């Protein structure tokens, strides 16, 4: 079930999570629509996730981004009911998680969904190999088999030779590799990442991001990735959901977010993003002006703007932007410079 490529890997419908003793009452009343501060003042409850819906496609890297306190960590924990949702429906591989019995839920956690944590959550009294094999151990796999499997995974994450070390003998980055290996070891269909790299320093973080991209290519898991770091989100996410105060304010590809922020919050967020690194030519090409020469070089619409700069500066003629066989528009040096200088360029919405 759920393995067919066209059905969604994860479906979330109208998910709510309200903390506090009177959560259910708030949920049933109109109070749930109050601003967070007002809600807390009035009822003492905190709405961490408010009416969130989204779908994650099989094999996709889906990023949820938001500042701390935006409810993103709560959201990801609701997916496998590490935190019990207050309302809403969650389906993973087509199965209704909310209705799963405790035993079934454990089965799902053991075999289908695994998670990587911000603070690693390693067990300091166990060797690296036993940490990686932990998930297999609680499934009841015999020692030899689970160690063999854990060994494979360790080399997959580049930790060959560290099997007998203890977690506290490793650097932070290596510890998180162990965390990653542990999540991978059970061969899940879905992997959840809760800000896995925010505790690492920037250089190591970059390595680890590359590692995740590589692993995603190699093992092709569906991934839900939580982060508060926009550049990480843009780098990893095929689609990104931006959360604020428990709600998703915009959901789309990096291009869509940067090109067409849904509101001031999002545009504020992405203000410092070098748009030329995210947007494609699709966003700035224009119809050729009458008499403009159309014999310049060709580039596909999906070319990132910054990658077009070299070609544009080498050629005196406008670049032809093509979408397949069709001409989508042209871009010349002036267009590029104007865009780069940050002047308001009319971007095509909803491209």
């Amino acid at each position: 079930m759920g393995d067919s490529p066209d059905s969604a890997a994860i479906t979330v419908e109208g998910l709510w999570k309200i903390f506090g003793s009177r959560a259910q009452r708030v949920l049933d009343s109109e109070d749930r629509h109050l601003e967070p501060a007002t809600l807390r003042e009035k009822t003492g409850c905190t709405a961490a996730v408010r009416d969130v819906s989204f779908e994650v496609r099989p094999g996709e890297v889906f990023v949820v981004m938001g500042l701390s306190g935006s409810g993103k960590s709560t959201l990801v924990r609701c997916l496998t009911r590490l935190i019990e949702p207050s309302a809403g429906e969650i389906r993973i591989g087509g199965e209704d998680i909310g209705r799963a019995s405790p035993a079934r839920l454990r089965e799902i956690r053991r075999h289908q969904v695994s998670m990587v944590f911000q603070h690693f959550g390693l067990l300091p009294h166990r060797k690296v190999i036993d940490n990686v094999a932990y998930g297999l151990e609680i499934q009841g796999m015999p020692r030899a088999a689970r160690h063999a499997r854990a060994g494979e995974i360790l080399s997959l994450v580049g930790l060959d030779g560290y099997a007998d070390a203890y977690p506290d003998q490793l650097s932070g980055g290596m510890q998180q590799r162990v965390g990653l290996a542990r999540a991978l070891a059970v061969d899940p269909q879905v992997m959840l990442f809760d800000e896995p790299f925010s505790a690492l320093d920037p250089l190591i973080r970059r390595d680890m991001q590359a590692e995740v991209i590589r692993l995603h290519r190699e093992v092709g898991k569906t991934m839900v990735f939580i982060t508060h770091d926009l550049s990480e989100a843009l780098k990893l996410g095929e689609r990104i959901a931006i959360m604020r105060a428990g709600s998703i304010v915009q959901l789309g590809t990096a291009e869509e977010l940067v090109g067409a922020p849904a509101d001031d919050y999002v545009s504020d967020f992405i203000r410092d993003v070098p748009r030329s690194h995210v947007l494609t030519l699709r966003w700035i090409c224009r119809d050729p002006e009458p008499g403009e020469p159309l014999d310049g070089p060709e580039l596909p619409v999906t070319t990132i703007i910054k990658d077009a700069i070299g070609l544009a500066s080498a050629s005196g003629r406008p670049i032809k932007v093509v979408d397949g066989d069709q001409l989508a528009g042209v871009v010349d040096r002036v267009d590029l410079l104007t865009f780069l200088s940050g002047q308001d360029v009319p971007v095509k919405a909803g491209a």
Partner: protein
Amino acid sequence: MSSTTAVSAPPRVKVPRWVAPVGAVVLFAAAYLAFRGTGTLPHDKEAPQFLAVTELREWIDDHRNDNPLFLYFLNYIRLFVGGLYDLFQTTLYALGWPGLTGVMGALAWLAGGWRIALLAVSGVSAFGFLGLWQSSVDTLALVAAAVLLSLAIGIPIGVWAGLSARARRAITPVLDVMQIMPTFAYLAPLALFFHIGAPAGAIATMIYSIPPAIRITALAISEVSPTAVEASASLGATRRQTLFKVYLPLARSTMALAVNQTIMMALSMVVIANLISAPGLGGDIIRGLSRAQVGIMLPAGVAIVVMAVVLDRMMMSVAQRGSAVGWRSGGSGATRAGEGGGAGATERASRSAAMNRPHAKLSRIDLVAAGVLAAVGLALIPVLPRVWPESWTINVVAEVNDAVRWAETTWYPVTTFIKDLVTASLLNPLETLLTSAPWWLVTLAVLAVAWRVSGVRPALIALGCLLAIALLGTWEHAMQTMTTVAVAVLVTLVIGLLLGVAAARSPRYSAVQRPLLDAAQTMPAFVYLLPALALFETTRFTAIFASIIYAVPPVVRLVEDGIKAVPATVVEAASSAGSTRGQLLWKVQLPMARQAILLAANQGIVMTLAMVVVGGLVGAGALGYDVVLGFSQRTDFGLGFVAGIATVLLGVMLDRITQGADRRSSPRKRKSP
């Protein structure tokens, strides 16, 4: 009277802050002068409350073997505990001294390498050399039985409390009261339900030593990294799997502290349990006390200290072996665990854990050495006599007695002077004041102080306790005990503050003092009676002296830590503003260490009370003596029993008055949004 109230009454007039307290003092003084001698509640040995309890006891004694509650429940518990004790005792005796020495040495080697093994072997041999083999083994068996029971009950409860905040909230006040309860107070009810002898002693010891087992286990569990727990859950672990694979292993090193603390508490209680005929070293100490012969007490005291040190080091090594840096988020939470001693223990372990290499696995050499040691010991069992040969013992009774006699006669003028000075200038006036003042005036005064220091709730609890004391017919003796406690606490705090400040300001002095404090906190309470008795014979002052040396170490430690905990940046800022060292101390460090100092006062009071009551054995009189009397004379059982309850009430009262203080200092924080 009216003039003082008039001064503080008009609201708008700006009155200095001292007017209200001074007014209150004047008011109380005036009331005292006016009503002195009236409304007192003199002690009556034949009070109906006491007689009722004595009769109850007689009834229970007569029906112990036909009342279903006893026949089918209490007696079974007694039987079970007795069986457990016998099992240990028989095993230990069967091992004989070669076997026991070998096995202890082996265990110690496994726990902490050859140094600890050496310590254990020489420690166990010391029991023999001191001529106390049998008593020591009995004590060991009693401690083992009590500790095993404590852990069997305490650890599950502790785990539960660690996992569930609600359980913790329910258990904490019970533990608080249990830890305030002076050791003596446990004995009478136990004698009532479980008769006397080893089983009753083991049960008393168990009840006394269970709070740290619960408290530290709960702490250990609640300190387990939540991410590790979540990670385990996210992989589909059952609650049981998470408990056994995550919680318990991660909490292990802190739980070793729980075991350690439980053992230490048990060691100090087994001695007192001798009052209800529990066997062991307590017998020798009580014998020394009742013969006023330090020579008899000293070897027994040394044996207990040796036992405490050996077991302490063994458990500490186990704790260190397991603990790796960064497992736990700091051990400060255990401050109140285990009558003040716990604070030191937790901290001591985390301190030494930091120095210890983590994950030190047992090497093969260690295993072999331990095995050889045990094997040699066991192999020698049939060869050597089981009981320590008498010719190998060192008898120092006469020498010690002579030395004490020499000290007594030589220092007689000094000790007598100190004793008489304190008695005449502090004890007697205060006692006269408290016992001749009308009960309602004392009650009002306590209420006022408690209200002022701790707020409404603690004040009401204190009031309740005091009224109960009055109703129980123990007013006069409670006032006398309170006097002794007050004087002892006063001196303890003065000394504690001085030493604590000195240690906080001079790292070199602190380095000298720390190990002494560590050692002092390992020693069972009873040992402190020894020097006190040697110097001051049996008087109230003896108990005061003993409680001071008992309570000073934790007070010093708390004060020192409190001052050291003042952030370096604050100190730096004050210094850069040109403060002198004195100004720094008075205006920055002491005020900022207020919490710690109040906690120290609270600890001091609780510990002092415990000791003053034990001091009933050495002439402290009042409630403590009543308890002793209750065990000594059947007709006074009721008196002793009720005195025990009164002691607990007094303890709760004093604790509430002072404990509220540290809660009060932060209400403003909470109010501002």
